[in-house]
């Protein structure tokens, strides 16, 4: 037993290509407690692949290796699909970017939630229905009865994402992995969805891995942030210390953002350095975390 919900050491994900194996994740190590952990990086940095590897969602010919990949002390690496399925959705859940693609378009919302929940719980239909309605109410859907019988195309994007969250949280998982959960949403809806996720994760004492390209959002929403570049973690920071970031890549990302609070003549352009691919991981600054 350990205090860590998830413990990862030297995680590697690679894919065969015509010019040899390509490593999308190159030796990632971190621990997740009952906290909100942000994973930030640009496209191709390996942040989503890290999340998928934990859930055993990397399909062959993709290959996952690690010195350690554990959930609460139980090994997750290369489990038989049957056992992985019991963990996936039951003990670790995932919310993806776009509800349009993750909800089944020909099944009512209610049936999908019930299906997800009954994968992991034995219950009568009536009980399952009751549970689904409770979950819809928990993600602050005002009229759960109506939404229960609706099809995904009949609800808005923000509501679709709340339905996804309801479905994922119904089996009471220990860990939630959210991969860009708000990138497809308008800003006003984004705040609402984040509030709901925030409250549910806190009330249930879950661990959250929040994967995003949005540094500012992550620093405001999470407790701790990992910054990934080219398949590796280049820096770890307490979220409130983001402005004290020391790695030139993190600094470059922050500086390249247009700002709403002040006029900038010219945006800083990131000059990528080859050395960032191999450099030592920068630990949090003293007094941090």
């Amino acid at each position, binding site marked *: 037993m350990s205090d860590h919900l998830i413990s990862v050491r030297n995680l590697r994900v690679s894919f065969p290509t015509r010019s040899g194996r390509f490593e999308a994740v190159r030796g990632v190590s971190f621990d997740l407690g009952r906290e909100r952990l942000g994973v930030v990086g*640009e*496209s191709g940095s390996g942040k989503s692949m890290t999340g998928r590897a934990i859930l055993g969602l990397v399909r062959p010919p993709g290959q996952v290796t690690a010195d350690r990949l554990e959930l609460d002390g139980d090994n997750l690496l290369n489990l038989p699909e049957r056992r992985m399925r019991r963990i996936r959705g039951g003990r670790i859940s995932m919310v993806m970017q776009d509800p349009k693609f993750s909800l089944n378009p020909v099944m009512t919302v209610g049936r999908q939630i019930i299906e997800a929940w009954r994968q992991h719980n034995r219950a009568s239909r009536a009980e399952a229905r009751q549970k689904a309605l409770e979950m819809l109410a928990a993600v602050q859907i005002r009229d759960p009865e109506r939404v229960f019988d609706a099809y995904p195309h009949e609800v808005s*994007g923000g509501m679709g994402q709340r339905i996804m969250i309801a479905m994922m949280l119904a089996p009471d998982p220990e860990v939630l992995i959210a991969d860009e959960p708000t990138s497809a949403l*308008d*800003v*006003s809806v*984004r*705040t609402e969805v*984040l*509030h709901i996720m*925030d*409250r549910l994760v806190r009330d249930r004492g879950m661990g959250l891995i929040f994967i995003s*390209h949005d*540094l*500012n*959002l992550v620093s*405001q*929403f999470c407790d701790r942030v990992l910054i990934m570049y080219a398949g590796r973690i280049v820096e770890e920071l307490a979220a409130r210390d983001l402005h004290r970031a020391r790695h030139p890549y993190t600094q*470059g*990302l922050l500086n*390249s*953002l*247009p*700002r*709403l*609070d*002040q*006029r*900038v003549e*010219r*945006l*800083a*352009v*990131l000059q990528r350095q080859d050395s960032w691919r191999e450099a030592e991981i920068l630990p949090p600054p003293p007094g941090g975390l």
Partner: protein
Amino acid sequence: MLHVGNLDVWFGLPPAQLVAVKGASFDVARGESFGLVGESGSGKSTILRAITGLIDTWSGDIRVAGEAVTGSRRDRTFHKRVQMVFQDPYASLHPRHSVDRVLSETLHLQGMTDIDSRITRLLEQVGLGRGFRFRYPHQLSGGQRQRVAIARALAAEPELLLLDEPTSALDVSVQAEILNLLADLRRERGLTYVMVSHDLAVVGHMCDRLAVMRGGELVEIMSADQLRAHQAQADYTSDLIGASIGYERA
């Protein structure tokens, strides 16, 4: 440069008619950069599409450099004056046409001469260099594709560029490069921009003035300075600014 007066745009016929833009009016001066911001479905892109003639179900007054346009027919002088850059550089370039073909086709259509040297010049202006001339879109990154799309728009030597979310499909570091490029081109060539975005920070950075849209209507028109100072007239704009600044824990 651009006058839009009392513009209505609709899709479909009653009773299933959707009015996407209601009574929008604004003017953009020559050399100005004007932003249209709003959330999805607010009608911001629809306005651009009505201007370029991609939609013909509209009424109202659209004038470009004093000349009124009608329906969806646009003559050659219009396309010489007005060009558009689309959101998704993965979708807006023909996958089987090389950069050379994309640009030479546009130059031919515009009746240009000395196409060869123009292509070299265009590629240099958008920071690609001649080495990219015979590449295909799949050999380019997202940012490089958007540079090609900008080169294609510049090929006609337009005065007015309509930019529909030109950087929302790109990583932030690439976004910075493209926004800098657009700012440089505007300064060097005295271009007029109308830029659509859902990102207030991007519009605040790029534009002198902006219109905030909601549900097809213009909520208010404000300057970028007012945006930065959070001096919004409408409650909706204040909410939008608040939500854009970030997330506050409950």
